[in-house]
């Protein structure tokens, strides 16, 4: 394990270059470049706001300064979710699609999914900057909690990396994982408090359906979303119990994922 990590560290330039490749290729041809990546969550936000806030009349709970704002309520959860889901969605095929590289060159294989996750992280951070502009515009005092936000982003990165490694690895042996992953992510989306508030809609049901609530709470991504929303929407210190569990679960996920991945990656060249 230590040797593997050392090797990964020594290949950091390759990781960096692959991240650059991801980003450059993504925006090279379009005139608007990076703005396309902002356009997508904004459009989703508009559609969801229209459906949930205007038609279904969902009103999010007010934050610590007494403000209610569905678009920000939504974006605070949607942006981390988008980071997570687009990372998984493209990392799943990263080993198989790069079979020509895998078969011809040696390098730590985990670099391929990790580079995708990191490229998406860059996007995510830029999107957050845009969200900050909204927050400032609407007068949300979130600055105080920025250090927490950095911790939460880091934990989110750890969890995303772990899940990406698992899916990328599984896809080498079972090619239909890349088809399944879309469905899994779709279900997972609703299993997170993104378009609804946890306390309003899940917490109140917990007594009636204890098992379902338990399963719901096992999902570290839901805890991460709660933490993001605590800082970005409610403008408060995240719940340490929630964030603590998310941290432990995320590191455990990454550990198991990395272990499995490294155990099998010497035979990737024969399988892809």
């Amino acid at each position, binding site marked *: 394990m230590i040797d593997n990590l050392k090797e990964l560290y020594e290949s950091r330039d390759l990781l960096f270059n*692959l991240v650059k490749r991801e980003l450059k290729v993504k925006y*090279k041809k379009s005139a608007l470049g990076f703005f396309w990546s902002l356009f997508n969550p904004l459009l989703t936000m508009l559609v969801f706001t229209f459906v949930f806030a205007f038609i279904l009349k969902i009103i999010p709970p007010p934050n610590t300064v007494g403000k209610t704002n569905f678009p920000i309520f939504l974006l605070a959860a949607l942006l981390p979710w988008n980071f997570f889901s687009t990372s998984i969605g493209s990392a799943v095929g990263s080993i198989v699609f790069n079979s020509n590289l895998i078969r011809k060159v*040696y390098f730590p294989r985990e670099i391929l999914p990790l580079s995708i996750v990191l490229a998406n992280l860059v996007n995510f951070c830029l999107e957050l900057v845009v969200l900050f502009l909204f927050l400032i515009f609407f007068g949300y005092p979130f600055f105080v909690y920025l250090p927490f936000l950095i911790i939460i982003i880091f934990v989110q990165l750890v969890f995303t990396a772990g899940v990406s490694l698992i899916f990328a690895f599984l896809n080498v042996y079972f090619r239909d994982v890349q088809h399944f992953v879309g469905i899994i992510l779709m279900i997972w989306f609703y299993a997170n408090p993104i378009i609804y508030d946890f306390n309003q809609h899940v917490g109140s049901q917990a007594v009636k359906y204890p098992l379902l609530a338990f399963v719901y709470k096992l999902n570290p991504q839901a805890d991460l979303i709660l933490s993001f929303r605590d800082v970005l929407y409610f403008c408060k210190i995240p719940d340490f119990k929630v964030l603590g569990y998310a941290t432990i679960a995320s590191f455990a996920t990454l550990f198991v994922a990395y272990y499995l991945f490294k155990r099998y990656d010497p035979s990737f*060249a024969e399988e892809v």
Partner: protein
Amino acid sequence: MIFLMTAMKNKVNNSNNAIEANGISKKYRIYYERNQTIKEIFLRRKKARFEEMWALKDVSFTVSKGSTIGIIGENGSGKSTLLKILARILRPDEGFFVVNGKISALLELGAGFHPELTGRENVYLNGSILGLTQKEVDARFDDIVSFSELDKFIDTPVKNYSSGMYLRLGFAVAINVNPDVLLIDEVLAVGDELFQRKCSDKIFEFKAQGKTIVLVSHSLEAVRNICDIAIWLDEGCIQSHGEARQVVDLYLNKVNEEERRKAGHKVEQEVGSRAGSQEVEITDVGFLNNKGEKTDSFLTNEEFIVRIDYDAHKTITNPVFGIAVYRNDGIHITGPNTKISNYKIDSINGKGYIEYKVKELPLLAGTYLFTAAIFDQSCLHPYDVHDRMYSFKVLPGGTTESNGFVSIMAKWKHKVNVRREM
């Protein structure tokens, strides 16, 4: 710096071997029906059917630092598998190996090139894939660009490159990796003549710098010229291991034998066999040196005499004696006969011999096959043809020349016309 440090570290804790391989075996599974989807695993509920095949079996060898080793063998003999194992792309099923120093494998040119990215961006990407750090690419960038001769196009996306430009850029990056041990697979066999020459120059440069090179090649000429030692793999086993020229010769002998065996089924054009109506028979063919002693090894520029003994069972007028010399990889070097040389023999009957004398044998070191033949005056009807039934060797040492296969008597002359003012 990094190389230096690893090199020093390795010097301290290890011997003079760059590579030590111990009992490496690799098996492949050839699947008939493979479960590659989850559905298949659940629905078919049977194990995938496969057959195991050993691509490498108990391969052990060492390569000392600074030497160049060639790996030869037929297609499917395990050459590339061995190279991929050394490059850590594949994992051996049995055995282990140690590589001292930084290793780079050139199995493909332009690995990881992205068509949308410019030449410059791809150089950095490809460089880091081959194990260079950012700084190392920075330091070599100008060399890479000038080697590739793509100065004008370096900021053009590589999708607009011709395939030759693409390869040139890939190779320029590849040869600028600076490993202690370099693994090369067939990649040299691409590109035009000029490019290939540049490549082999670069390999000789690597050699001169004392790097260890492992070369997998079908070009026996390349292995003979570049490599010090060679390994001949046959169906995954080491068939022969030793001095490159010897191993190549052994391998060639086997290939020739096989060719002969296959050709043996054909009636015409038998290789290494006898044909003709045999009114005259060739009774013996001997190679003599300048002392008149029978031998089958010579030195370049030594006197070389062939004596062909015959027995004519009836009177033959104007017979034509001919010989032919082949190198053992099948190249026909020469094929003179008495008719071409205007050497008239009126008639023969009974026993006699004819001599073919070469004052200074121009052939370079190698193994040669020899044909002796007697034809009628039209050269259409063979009396007796001993096609490639004899062989002789030319040992190294008669000349300092070693490139190609003949040494031509010639002199160099240099003259200065105009001296450039400094």
